[in-house]
Every structure is written in C-alpha cells, then in structure tokens.
C-alpha cells in the first residue's frame, strides 16, 4: 500500500482488508484544525472539493473485506455522506465479478484555476494483473530465511534491502527512461520486500511524478498492480509512450489476464490516441472489453485483455 501527499492533493492506495474510506473523518478534522483550510461545504454539510476519485477492481475474496468494503453500493453510500455530486460507474462485465468500479465527483469549477492549470498534463495509467506467470511471481518471494547483504548503515534494514534487490533484479526501476545517459530527471526509489513474500515500491521521477507497484505472488491469488501519473510522452521528450511502459510491465509479470485504465484531461493527446489501439501491439493477448467514458473534464479508457491459449 502507498500514500502520496502533494500540497493540495493526496492519493491513498491500500490492499488486503484495509478500510481505506474510514480515514475520511479524521483526515478532514486534521485538515480543518491543523491547516485552517475552510473547505467548501454544501448546506447539508457535504464537502465540495475540486475533484475526488475512488476506484477499485472487484476483490478476489469480497466476503473477507471489512464493513462497507464488502460491497460497492455501501462504499458509494459512504462516499456520498462526505462528498457532493458524486457519480458511480461499474466498468466492464458485471457477470464475471472482475469488473472495475469508479466513483468520481463533478469538478468544482467555483475555485479559480491558474491559467496553466487548464492545460494540465494530468494523466493516470493503471494496470491490474492477475494469474501471474509462476516463474515471474517467484521473483517476489524471498522466504523466511533469505540472506541478504546485512544492513550496513544504521538506517538500512533487511526488508528495504531485499526490496531494492527485487527492484534491480526485475528492472522495475527501468520502466521509464531515467538513466543518467538519457535523462537528467531526478529519480527516487523506495521498495520493501515482505517476508515470506510480496513486494511494494514507490518511484518518484522529476520530484513530482510517481509510479507505484504492489505484488502478491502467492499461487491461486497472484496479483500485481502498477499505477503511474507520469506523462510519459512529454517526460521522455517523445522517446517513450505508454505502449513501451505496458510492454515492460507485462514482460516482468506475464499475467494471464489484466485490465488497464487510462485517465486523461486531454483526449486529443498523443498518449490517449496511442492507447486507443494499444491491443493491436499485444499479439499474445486477446481483447475482452474496450470502453471509453467521457467524464465531464476527464476521458477514461478501460480495456481488459486475456492471454491467448
């Protein structure tokens, strides 16, 4: 799980049986008390914020979830207690219980936006992979007695050391061009290898863009997620696009099935145009679903693919 905190935005991504939405009450109390922000509220006390997204794939074991997270309708009801103008979508096939759910509020345009904000390059690319190739999944198993280079400095430790080694071994730090030869962008990395297995990592590129990976390699419910807000085409000066990114990730995990979502504000962008036909460059996979939503000021692209037998 990961949390990314910006000046005016946060992204919280948690797996397992976590209760993500139960942070809202305390979060708003903290913000109002500690930051003295007077957040917009409607007469019936709902927050009218610039934008809220909440999304998740169907769980593998929904009945093991806690409280409201056992079903999407309860989550939507809970979110609607906090936020004004929320809309809920189920994207993909409902009959297979592996569709994707989205809750999004209408953008609050009452807050003036700085001019350059309009041309904002905000995009989010997410790939959710199941039934990983066993050999690939095994790279994220470290076992109870894996030896690693013993912590050398006081603030090093085994989990982070192993996480670093997993990143290097699987080249998950090379998804975006950032080596000193081809980019002068700053690159920060934090990874942790769980015992006996599992991996989480946050990478930050150019101080403000992140990608994050979470892997549950166990046979029977193996899963890996990738999420990024890196505007790859711009940041690589046209040298890379989301197809390069996707191919790198699929090569590391080789899932039998995966879904991808791509949010963009600018549907005319090269990135969005390229992603519309991305499945044509994936000969090993067959397209199950391809869905495009126009969500007031964002466009959402959703695709589900399965490995050809």
């Amino acid at each position, binding site marked *: *799980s*990961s*949390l*990314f*905190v*910006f*000046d*005016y*935005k*946060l*992204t*919280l*991504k*948690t*797996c*397992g049986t*976590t*209760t*993500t*939405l139960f*942070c809202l009450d305390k979060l708003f109390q903290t913000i109002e008390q500690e*930051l003295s922000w007077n957040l917009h509220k409607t007469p019936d006390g709902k927050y009218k914020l*610039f934008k*809220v*997204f909440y999304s*998740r*794939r169907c*769980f593998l074991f929904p009945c093991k979830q*806690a409280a409201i997270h056992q079903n999407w309708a309860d989550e939507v009801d809970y979110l609607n207690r906090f936020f004004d103008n929320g809309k809920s979508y189920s994207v993909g096939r409902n009959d297979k219980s592996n569709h994707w759910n989205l809750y999004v509020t209408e953008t609050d345009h009452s*807050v*003036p*936006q*700085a001019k350059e904000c309009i041309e904002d390059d*905000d995009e989010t690319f997410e790939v959710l992979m199941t039934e990983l190739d066993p050999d690939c999944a095994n790279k994220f198993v470290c076992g109870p007695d894996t030896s690693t280079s013993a912590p050398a400095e006081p*603030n090093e*430790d085994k*989990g*982070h050391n192993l996480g*670093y080694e997993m*990143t290097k071994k699987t080249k998950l730090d090379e998804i975006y061009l950032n080596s000193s030869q081809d980019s002068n962008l700053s*690159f920060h*990395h*934090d*990874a*942790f290898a*769980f*015992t*006996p*297995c*599992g991996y*989480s990592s*946050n*990478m*930050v590129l150019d*101080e*403000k863009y992140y990608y994050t990976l979470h892997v*549950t390699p166990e046979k029977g*419910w193996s*899963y890996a*997620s990738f999420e990024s807000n890196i505007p790859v085409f711009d940041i690589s000066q046209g040298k890379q696009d989301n197809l390069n990114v996707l191919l790198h990730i699929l090569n590391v995990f080789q899932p039998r099935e995966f879904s991808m979502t791509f949010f963009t504000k600018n549907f005319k962008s090269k990135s969005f145009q390229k992603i519309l036909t991305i499945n044509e460059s994936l000969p090993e996979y067959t397209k199950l679903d391809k869905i495009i939503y126009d969500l007031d000021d964002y466009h959402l692209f959703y695709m589900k693919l399965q490995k050809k037998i």
Partner: protein
Amino acid sequence: TVTIKELTNHSYIDHELSASLDSTDAFEGPEKLLEIWFFPPNNAVSAGKTLRDIAMDRWIEILKLVKCEVLSMKKTKELDAFLLSE
C-alpha cells in the same frame, strides 16, 4: 535507475515495524484507490499551509483507521511518498 544510496536517504523509516512484518496471511491484492484534489493543481487561491505540513504522527493516526502503518517515507521537492505496511 536506482542507486544503492536510495537505501540510506529515507525521510522516515520504521525499522521495528519492518523487522516484524509477516505477509503469510496476505490474500487480497486488488487495491482501493482514493484520490482527493482539495484544490486545483497550481492552485492560485489558497496560500499558507499545505497537506505536506501535516506531521508524521498525524498521518500515522489517520492511517491506523485504514489498518495501515507507515513503513517508510521519501520526501521530494513536490511530494511525500509513503510506503505502507499492507
């Protein structure tokens, strides 16, 4: 690409938690993803404190309600990236 110095420049790390975590019972990978924009990007309105002024122990309290703990955190010029226990 990542260099070994990235193992030593955390802004925060919980060694005790790191050494005690056990993922034997992990079974649910699919995540819940919440993103909240309190103000527009490049916000021209609100001056003063930002989310990044919220102290670590406050984040730890908030995340406890989610059933997460903070493993480590990296700070850059524009964001704080927390790695969490789940």
